[in-house]
């Protein structure tokens, strides 16, 4: 029980500190707000300040509990110093809506609280959201993580999680996110009341709060609901600015808009939206727009720049893991980025966009989560297009919903859904004839009934991401956390096994993510970084016939003396180009590779050594689709006789076409061969598995974890000695291997 109390304290403390920071800020803004508005806006306004304070502690390497405690106390003291007094009450809402809201808020609130309080077992929360947070806390600040692309994303909400995690670990982070799930309906209600549509606000609050995907996401250590609350805050503040324009308010709106980017890249649209909204209002009111937009931009940049700089310093790409074609770097491959983006747009099981409505409304097995069938009424909001309020909401919803097309998972509708819900509420409570307004209450109650976990279970598809009824014993830690996680979290047992069977500081290659929030080891997930991609490629080369370096492409040409040789790609296509080894010959003898040789490649230049290391298990790969002009170049240091170049290649590159150019002794580039000739395949190199294993050892991989159901698992098990590995632990669905000769 003391553990449960500590967790609850940590979550409440974090939320209170954010509220305090927001309160202190609001008290300095020249704004006339109602009591409800003040408390609804305080959390999303304070969150950027607290998050940025945590960012500073991480940058300074002082992310420790006492420092966070001091920050928390400072914000609480600032709020107490500027405690809001005499705030006017908000306009009332009809009694029927008070009852409806309470009818939904109380049971769902208890449900969510118990879920968030229970040990965190959400897929992303238990892996990268909190895995990275744990690493920061152990390192007392930012670590240069180049092997996990998720760590490269902006982490504004995760830094709030870090604050909570320091006091109460995983569940405290989920409780922090839950605070945003509380703020979101409060904002909808407050905005509805401000615009004279209290019923609509209550309707939207009910829809959003009870929605299954909002519930499971908001009660887990994710960040989508927090981002939705922040986007709604940007909308709110720009509307307030239109009524009460001031530079401080423009700064506050800019800060929250910039923080949206700081929480999730896809929320960057808050910045252009805010600029356009304020710019348009300023133009209509004939206000000095430049000053207001300048202040808005500066505040937004202050929130965005730290993340750009961090990524620039650590990863050579301010927008990592995106835009790698613009900012080439050795940490995320261009081909991976393209493939990942494609996967996010094309979920498995979704054969056409026509399947999406059913998926996001009530089925949910392919797009992870459901909004609830009642959101199918959202198009009715279009009936209110004649009303400026509805138009503004729908416009914001469309803008913030645009990134959905980059990731069609249900939770990527969360940013737009509150706007649609409020617009729908305005139609059902304001546009419909008075005698039909009971419909809105019925719809809200029906939504609540349909969204209760036992009901969702009846109509959603098996496998849909949804919340089960909570285990209150787990929430109160009367049931051991490990027992609960073993039941609910796939891979938990294996993560613990890895931790028990490896030493601190070990680098462990895994092919499928483990819940690394529960494993304090350096897990190198194969797909999450360029390094991981390469390690997997080396390890799988002996297993995949198409990856074996048995193909031979030969350039034969007139003997001559050349200082440089350049192999140029002449084709365009979807395949990657790779070379296992490039060998130069003169009169039938291979030229000995000399220390004076230099090599380079136009694509993936960091890996070109793999084509010249005499290791058949490694290969240079372009890691981007082939295009004419790509090249691999060898500088021999001084002109040398060459009459043949042989490329040892895998046979998985049918589109590749190459020509060879040479820089002769006179300094002139000449085309030596327009095409390469494929010669007879070579035998499979001896001891390829051992070569792959040795290479992984050389690249400081200490262990390899293979799940029993993963491709290649049987080979690793039965041929462990051929790889040079031996199992050190097995169970919980996987085997931990280490090298026989470390």
């Amino acid at each position, binding site marked *: 029980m003391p553990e449960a109390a500590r967790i609850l304290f940590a979550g409440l403390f974090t939320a209170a500190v954010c509220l305090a920071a927001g309160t202190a800020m609001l008290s300095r803004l020249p704004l006339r707000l109602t009591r409800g508005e003040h408390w609804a806006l305080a959390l999303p306004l304070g969150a950027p300040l607290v998050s940025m304070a945590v960012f500073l502690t991480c940058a300074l390497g002082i992310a420790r509990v006492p420092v966070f405690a001091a920050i928390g106390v400072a914000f609480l003291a600032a709020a107490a110093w500027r405690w809001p007094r005499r705030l006017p009450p908000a306009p009332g809402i009809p009694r029927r809506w008070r009852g409806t809201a309470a009818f939904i808020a109380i049971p769902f609130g208890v449900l969510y609280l118990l879920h968030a309080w229970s040990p965190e077992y959400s897929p992303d929360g238990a892996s990268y959201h909190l895995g990275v947070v744990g690493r920061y806390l152990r390192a007392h600040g930012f670590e240069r993580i180049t092997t996990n692309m998720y760590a490269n994303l902006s982490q504004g909400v995760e830094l709030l999680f870090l604050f909570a995690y320091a006091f109460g670990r995983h569940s405290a982070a989920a409780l922090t996110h839950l605070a945003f799930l509380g703020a979101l309906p409060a904002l909808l209600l407050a905005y509805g009341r401000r615009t004279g549509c209290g019923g609509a606000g209550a309707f939207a609050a009910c829809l959003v709060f009870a929605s299954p995907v909002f519930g499971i996401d908001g009660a887990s250590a994710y960040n989508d609901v927090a981002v939705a609350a922040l986007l709604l805050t940007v909308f709110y503040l720009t509307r307030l600015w239109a009524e009460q324009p001031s530079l401080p308010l423009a700064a506050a709106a800019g800060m929250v808009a910039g923080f949206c980017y700081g929480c999730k890249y896809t929320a960057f649209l808050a910045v252009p939206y805010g600029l356009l909204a304020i710019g348009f209002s300023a133009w209509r009111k004939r206000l000095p727009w430049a000053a207001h937009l300048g202040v808005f*931009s500066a505040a937004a*940049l202050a929130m965005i*720049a730290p993340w*750009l700089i961090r990524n*620039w310093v650590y990863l*050579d*790409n*301010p927008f990592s893991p995106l835009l790698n074609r*613009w*900012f*080439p*770097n050795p940490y995320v491959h261009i081909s991976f980025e393209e493939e990942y983006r494609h996967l996010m747009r094309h979920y498995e099981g979704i054969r056409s966009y026509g399947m999406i409505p059913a998926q996001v409304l009530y089925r949910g097995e392919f797009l992870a989560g459901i909004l609830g069938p009642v959101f199918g009424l959202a198009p009715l909001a279009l009936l209110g297009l004649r009303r400026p309020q509805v138009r503004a909401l729908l416009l914001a919803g469309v803008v913030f919903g645009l990134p959905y097309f980059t990731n069609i998972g249900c939770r990527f509708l969360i940013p737009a859904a509150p706007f649609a819900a409020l617009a729908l509420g305005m139609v059902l409570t304001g546009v419909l004839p008075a005698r039909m307004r009971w419909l809105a209450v019925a719809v809200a109650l029906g939504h609540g009934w349909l969204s209760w976990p036992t009901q969702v279970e009846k109509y959603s598809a098996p496998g849909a991401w949804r919340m089960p009824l909570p285990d209150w014993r787990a929430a109160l830690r009367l049931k051991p956390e490990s027992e609960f996680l073993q039941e609910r979290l796939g891979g938990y047992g294996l993560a613990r096994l890895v931790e028990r069977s490896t030493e601190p500081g070990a680098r462990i290659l895994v092919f499928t993510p483990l819940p690394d929030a529960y494993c304090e080891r350096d897990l190198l997930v194969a797909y999450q970084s360029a390094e991981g991609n390469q390690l997997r490629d080396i390890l799988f080369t*002996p297993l995949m*016939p198409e990856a*074996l370096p048995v193909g031979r492409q030969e350039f034969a040409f007139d003997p001559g003396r050349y200082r440089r040789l350049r192999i140029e790609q002449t084709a365009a296509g979807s395949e990657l180009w790779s070379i296992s080894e490039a060998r130069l010959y003169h009169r039938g003898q291979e030229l000995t*590779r*000399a*220390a004076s*040789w*230099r*090599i*380079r*490649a*136009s*694509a993936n*230049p960091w890996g*070109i*050594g*793999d084509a*010249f*290391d*005499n*290791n058949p298990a490694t290969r240079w790969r372009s890691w981007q689709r082939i295009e004419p002009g790509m090249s691999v*170049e060898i*500088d021999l240091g001084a002109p040398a006789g060459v009459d043949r170049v042989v490329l040892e290649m895998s046979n998985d590159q049918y589109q590749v076409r190459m020509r060879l150019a040479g820089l002769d002794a006179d300094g002139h580039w000449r085309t030596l061969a327009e095409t390469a000739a494929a010669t007879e395949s070579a035998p*499979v*190199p*001896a*001891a*390829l*598995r*051992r*070569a792959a294993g*040795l*290479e992984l050892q050389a690249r400081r991989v200490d262990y390899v974890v293979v799940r029993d159901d993963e491709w290649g698992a049987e*080979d690793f098990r*039965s*041929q*462990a*000695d*051929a790889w*040079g590995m031996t199992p050190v632990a097995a169970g919980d669905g996987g085997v931990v291997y280490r090298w*026989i000769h470390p």
Partner: protein
Amino acid sequence: MRVVLFSLLLLPACRPPGDWQPLPFQRPALTANDESVLRSFVRMSDPEAPRHFLGGISSSLEAGSWRWTRKRPELKLFVRPGSVGRLRVEFAVAEDTFRETGPVRVAFFVNGSRAGEQRCPRPGQYAYEQPLPTGLLRPGALNTLAFEVDKAWISPADGEALGLILLAAGFLP
């Protein structure tokens, strides 16, 4: 100011990606004669499987997963020190040969000593797996594994003997 900051952000993109690099460390070639490259258990689909054959196994891989054996196939396998021994042989009796031979017996030999026997009353797939007596295997050295089918199918065309369909064989920890 914004122009300066934006320009700074673009700086990484200006870095030439094609810098010259020295040659990396040259890995010494691993050869098939190195005992350590041989395995204790080998699957026929493995590209390196033929290195383990001493005789009686076809060089042709069928359907990407199996090879014909003659009457007495034999393999050499390297057993690492410390790995204890179970013998496992995955094989099948083909329906076509079974029509001629009827039920067959397969006897297994490790380092020349008889290690077990499997009766095959029907055509189909079999997996023989038994712990080996202590002392039969030589840890840290090459070991031989042979198995002999009592009746082989003889091709009327060329007199070639076909024994079993072999999928995998060797020693497991």
